[in-house]
């Protein structure tokens, strides 16, 4: 059908062949293409908070500064990541902690670990008292409801046990979620960005062409 049509005789100039090659190379590189930023995530286990820091190509941030602030911005403690980009600390207060990672070359990320998560630990008196407070609050909220045959202390114990068990079970999932939280670069993002750029070009040329008339 195409025989004799102008399409058939159309041959690519060398420059367009080069452009096509470039585009193909670009596409080929995208699956391995990774964002350039640092990612910090933290989770509580027992009475400790563990942090992991890595560049988004998976390289660990070694020897980078970790600072921990309380909710009003006071620095609580400071430390450095080890060879695996990890740093663990015992939270001095049970409150929302803002953890800030400063890696080399001006990279920075922060992660807020809510006070709730810090209470997950089964050890440590502070952790326990936190538990009791939380349970008490909930109980007060349910004052009107009958608690069945069980006395209040028993309900509390069950609640604490369930919470602990849940925490334990959910930890890997929380970790996965935290790990996946800012996976910035996507194919859509890359294509969208290129589209933006050519869109801007189109707008400029459009106004230019109107002026020219």
């Amino acid at each position: 059908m195409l025989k004799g049509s102008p399409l058939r005789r159309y041959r690519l100039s060398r420059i367009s062949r080069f452009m096509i090659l470039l585009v193909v190379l670009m596409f080929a590189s995208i699956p391995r293409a990774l964002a350039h930023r640092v990612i910090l995530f933290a989770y509580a286990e027992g009475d400790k908070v563990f942090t992991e820091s890595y560049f988004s190509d998976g390289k660990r941030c070694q020897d980078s500064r970790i600072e921990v602030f309380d909710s009003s911005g006071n620095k609580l403690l400071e430390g450095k990541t080890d060879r695996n980009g990890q740093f663990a600390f015992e939270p001095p207060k049970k409150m929302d902690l803002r953890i800030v990672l400063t890696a080399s070359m001006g990279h920075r990320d922060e992660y807020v670990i809510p006070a709730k998560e810090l209470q997950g630990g089964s050890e440590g008196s502070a952790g326990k008292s936190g538990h009791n407070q939380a349970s008490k609050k909930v109980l007060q909220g349910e004052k009107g409801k009958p608690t069945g045959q069980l006395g209040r202390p028993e309900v509390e114990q069950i609640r604490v046990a369930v919470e602990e068990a849940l925490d334990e079970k959910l930890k890997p999932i929380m970790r996965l979620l935290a790990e996946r939280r800012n996976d910035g670069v996507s194919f859509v993002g890359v294509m969208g960005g290129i589209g933006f750029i050519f869109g801007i070009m189109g707008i400029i040329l459009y106004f230019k062409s109107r002026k020219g008339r």
Partner: protein
Amino acid sequence: MHISEGVLSAPVLATGAALTAAGCGIGLKKLDYDRVPQVAILTSAFFVASLIHVPIGPSSVHLVLNGLMGLLLGWAAFPAILIALFLQALLFQFGGITSLGVNTFNMAFPAIICFYLFAYAVKGRNHLMSMAAAFACGFSAILVGCLMVAMSLAFTGDPLVGVAKIVAVAHLPVMIIEGLITVFSTGFLRKLKPELLEAAHAKR
């Protein structure tokens, strides 16, 4: 080499933004509208280049392509890099919106320096000289960029020499790769589209 949000102090951010605004003003004024498509192509190249990691060395580094941008675009590299970095901040959370001015200046200023230092030699007759100049252009654009980053960080208290050393050593493989990329690109353009190498000089 994107500096994240919240690392630099307000005066540094403001200075960077002001310098970038000035650079973009000059760039847009000098920009010949026939070259807008070329600027757009190089902007998207720069936009994508940061996604290509160089898996050599202790840190995490990526291509920048600011030497090539400067060489082919001259002052138009300023608005081009601004747009590319803005989109990177928006879409990938590289760098940040507040540090956009500083980041743009850190990458575009070396591009302009390299344009003035090497563009003449690159488009010259002597083939060997042209190749050497192209390599030097790609190489030193990154080197100067590293110094700029170190300087910006130094204003907020990091030791200048220490940071400069770390950044430059981490980017050594990138410098070499970008030098080679610039050699190949300009070699290709010299054969096929030599007028592109002239274009940045056309309007002064």
